[in-house]
């Protein structure tokens, strides 16, 4: 029967006769007689059975109808491992066998896995050196950025105004909605929880102190920082990372445009400038939220609320918030841009680096916030 390459089976499809084989013990030793369609479909189970066959002298392909390279591979493999010779192969089958035989190269396995303890230690060491490398890399990155900043200051024509204004819009203006809503709701929650607890001491009126001081001093800026890290820090990492993968950043360098000046500095400056504005806006929205609760539930008229806020919130609370905000902004932008510029290799890396940027930014913001709290208390800004 003529052997037709599987490709020519056409509309009849591949559902032909299933591949099978029988062994015959004859005068000249053992013969493996193959029959049916030796194509990829329905050959998977034969693979293991064939491995078990040994002591073969001949493989007879006389009854094979169709064959593709997978079938050829199985036959080739069996012939090599048992030393059997192949007979009655049609021209096409012989050609397939030859092609597959040529492609059969000794495998070079990757090095085997090592002992669990050693590889565990190795991973620990890698993690430590990675952490140290990451920290020193971040410092070096910051250094380069400062240098780029002064280079641009000396030569103001190099300021990327367009990019800067775009970043103002993306980081600041477009965040107004979500940050406003979040802060407004947080203001209500603080007022509600505060009033419930303080009522037990008959000190419900101090809810206003709680709202005013907490929002300006801590929560307004902190929540804004977390939101900006999630919104913009991640975007920085993903944007720059993708640009690295598509070689855009390399292209910039060869043209003589410094990526630090054209991409990173605008993001950095924009975040540093937008954070205090967003932080202040968030605090005001939280005050309004709290005020609304106080007005509707505690029956305190808005005018009294505003009056109380002015009395109980010292101006230093406002200063504290506005001092912290740009620092947080710098950290968020730094983490985002640094992680983005570290991307190398593949798309998964972009995801990993983006996650790292957000986690790093939020972590550092909270650590710094704690340090600021201690610092401001100790200089007497209570």
């Amino acid at each position: 029967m003529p052997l037709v390459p599987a490709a020519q089976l056409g509309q009849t499809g591949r559902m032909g006769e299933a591949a099978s084989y029988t062994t015959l013990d004859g005068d000249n030793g053992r013969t493996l007689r193959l029959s049916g369609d030796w194509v990829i479909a329905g050959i998977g189970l034969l693979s293991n059975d064939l491995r078990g066959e040994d002591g073969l002298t001949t493989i007879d392909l006389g009854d094979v109808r169709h064959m593709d390279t997978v079938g050829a591979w199985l036959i080739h493999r069996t012939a090599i491992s048992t030393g059997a010779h192949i007979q009655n192969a049609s021209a096409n089958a012989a050609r397939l066998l030859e092609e597959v035989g040529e492609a059969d190269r000794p495998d070079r396995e990757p090095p085997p896995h090592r002992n669990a303890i050693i590889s565990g230690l190795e991973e620990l060491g890698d993690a430590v050196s990675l952490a140290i490398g990451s920290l020193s890399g971040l410092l070096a990155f910051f250094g380069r950025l400062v240098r780029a900043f002064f280079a641009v200051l000396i030569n103001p024509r190099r300021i990327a105004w367009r990019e800067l204004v775009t970043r103002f819009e993306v980081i600041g203006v477009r965040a107004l909605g979500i940050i406003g809503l979040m802060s407004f709701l947080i203001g209500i929650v603080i007022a509600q929880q505060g009033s419930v607890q303080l009522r037990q001491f008959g000190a419900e009126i101090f809810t206003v102190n709680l709202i005013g001081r907490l929002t300006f001093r801590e929560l307004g800026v902190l929540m804004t920082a977390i939101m900006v890290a999630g919104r913009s820090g991640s975007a920085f990492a993903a944007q720059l990372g993708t640009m690295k993968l598509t070689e855009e950043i390399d292209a910039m360098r060869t043209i003589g445009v410094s990526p630090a000046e054209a991409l990173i500095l605008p993001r950095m400056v924009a975040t540093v400038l937008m954070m205090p504005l967003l932080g202040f806006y968030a605090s005001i929205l939280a005050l309004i939220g709290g005020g609304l609760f106080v007005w509707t539930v505690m029956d305190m008229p808005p005018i009294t609320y505003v009056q109380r806020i002015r009395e109980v919130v010292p101006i230093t609370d406002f200063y504290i918030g506005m001092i912290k905000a740009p620092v947080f902004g710098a950290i968020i932008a730094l983490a985002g841009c640094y992680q983005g510029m570290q991307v190398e290799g593949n798309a998964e890396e972009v995801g990993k680096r983006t996650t790292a940027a957000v986690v790093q930014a939020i972590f550092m913001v909270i650590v710094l916030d704690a340090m600021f709290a201690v610092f401001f208390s100790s200089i007497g800004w209570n």
Partner: protein
Amino acid sequence: MATDPLRNAETDHQNDKDAVISVRGLTNRFGDFAVHQDLDLDVRRGEILGVVGGSGTGKSVLMRSIIGLQMPASGDIRVFGESMIDRDEDEAEAVRRRWGVLFQGGALFSTLNVLENVQVPLKQFYPDFDKRLLDEIARYKITMSGLPAEAAYKYPSELSGGMKKRAGLARALAMDPDLLFLDEPTAGLDPIGAAAFDELTKSLQDTMGHTVFLITHDLDTLHSICDRVAVLADKKVIAIGTIDELIACDHPWIHEYFSGPRGRMASKSHI
């Protein structure tokens, strides 16, 4: 012999029984801009069909329509006799396991090494294959595609452009497809690498007998391995036939293409 390829494109396809791919009245639109308008095309069983056309004439869009990545505005596309429009998932899968696609940049899965990349279609369609068999199959496919054996454990980011294409080809060939789509396989390769890739395409096709749908700009590829060439212009396949037939026809673009300085050079070296 001397059929007019311009007329071929319009009439000859009415009932080409031997067509692996048949496209009828295909219209593709992006917004108001029509890339294809009433495009007809037949790809015959066992041939290597080269698809050429200027940049932006929708060669890749045509391929994407045929493999179902681009929903056409209207028209009918049949692959192995199955309509690719509004088909259900089971039918689509039956067709999908019979074709292999090599994308322009290789489109390797960047988080998997070459060996795993080649195994993806095998695992998808034959989950019962054991790991040893999968490894064996993937390994000989990789060598067949002209990659060194040690490339199997490399990741796409560690491969050169040419090696990525070869790895992509190995993945496209994983299932022993009856139909192979190649999107500019030799673009970006050096002439030696490109010639080797052509030879590889041809010898694999000789061995396995699959049909090849080949998009290319490479005149050498057209001359050395294509059985027929389809020319895309004016939103249609304006001509289809052997290179000699195409050279003989007087459409200005085709004339320019095959008889321009590069076309002449390529045809000289393949006589």
